[in-house]
């Protein structure tokens, strides 16, 4: 099955979006967003894989050896860092929401209050 890794990425993304849309707690929603985002790691690394390839680091293998695609690995690194910090920012927003409104259920947060 040569498309299985891509389908796994699509599945993780859809599961994350489902959880995000049906969430009843903002902390859970932030977790679901992280799941949806992690599908991009699977997708990027699947795109970059090459059969028989090793890590694209030439400190212990000779140049010319088959390596996997380093560009998508760099993108995945970017993705992880941005994902982690944005999750922290969202959780900070949830902390403030819980303090102001006394709830983290998005269904109860239907109106903007000052």
């Amino acid at each position, binding site marked *: 099955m*040569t498309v299985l890794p891509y389908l796994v990425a699509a599945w993780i993304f859809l599961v994350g979006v489902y959880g995000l849309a049906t969430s009843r707690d903002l902390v859970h929603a932030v977790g679901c967003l992280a799941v949806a985002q992690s599908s991009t790691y699977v997708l990027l690394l699947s795109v970059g894989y090459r059969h028989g390839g090793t890590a694209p680091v030439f400190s212990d293998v000779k140049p010319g050896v088959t390596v996997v695609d380093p560009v998508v690995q760099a993108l995945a690194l970017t993705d992880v860092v941005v994902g982690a*910090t944005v999750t922290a920012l969202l959780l*900070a*927003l949830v902390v403030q929401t819980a303090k102001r409104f006394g709830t983290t259920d998005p269904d109860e947060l239907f109106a903007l209050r000052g």
Partner: protein
Amino acid sequence: MSRRARLCVLAAGLLATAALLVAAVLRVPSFGGPWHPYGDRAVEAALRRNTANTVSAVNFDQRAFDTLGEESILFASVLGTVVLLRRTEDERTSEPRPVSVPATMRRYGIAALPVTLLVGLYVIAHGQLSPGGGFQGGVVVATAFHLLYVAIDYPALKRVRAVGLYEIGDALGEAAYVLTGVGGLLAGAAYLANVLPYGTFNTLASGGTVPLLNAAVGVEVASAVVVLLARFLSQALEIEGGRE
């Protein structure tokens, strides 16, 4: 909209997205295939500039400007979190008390701290040679300090961690990255161009500006993680009261 109606809309959207994704996936180049034009060129470019770790070469040399954007996202998120999680007027702070922990755990925490710190600094310094770099090593360095919280208690962590210094460190890391880029302009090349000598392949002094940018990112990420965790910990352990 009722919950049921929302679920129907969601199901329709998810099914349509799933169909599009499957249709797209069936036409992409097959998994594990030999055709990686960008990857091959990135490897060539990294080797031309004596950088053994191609991933670092991509992040800090070929795509250095994009990494500046990424660093700025990190910086902005930390700034936003600091603003959001400050103590408001109607809240009080309380001093958390020391807790009693088994002596073995305390000893293990204190023994593991310098080792973890050294590993983190090693990972930052060898970013151009072996897997790792500023982002990964920075997180390890920040973790080292928090071993004190995990193995001992919050006051022990607070004694070694002056948050103000790390806030400055975060800004300095970002500034160092921006100014290293200006170095490229002063040398008559493009912004963030790799203008330093490329050094000897597979030694610490290789890769031109890659180790410098790695160090800047390492300082920023370590400081950012310390500041972020400090804000969340103080919300959980120190700040109480306020509007309910």
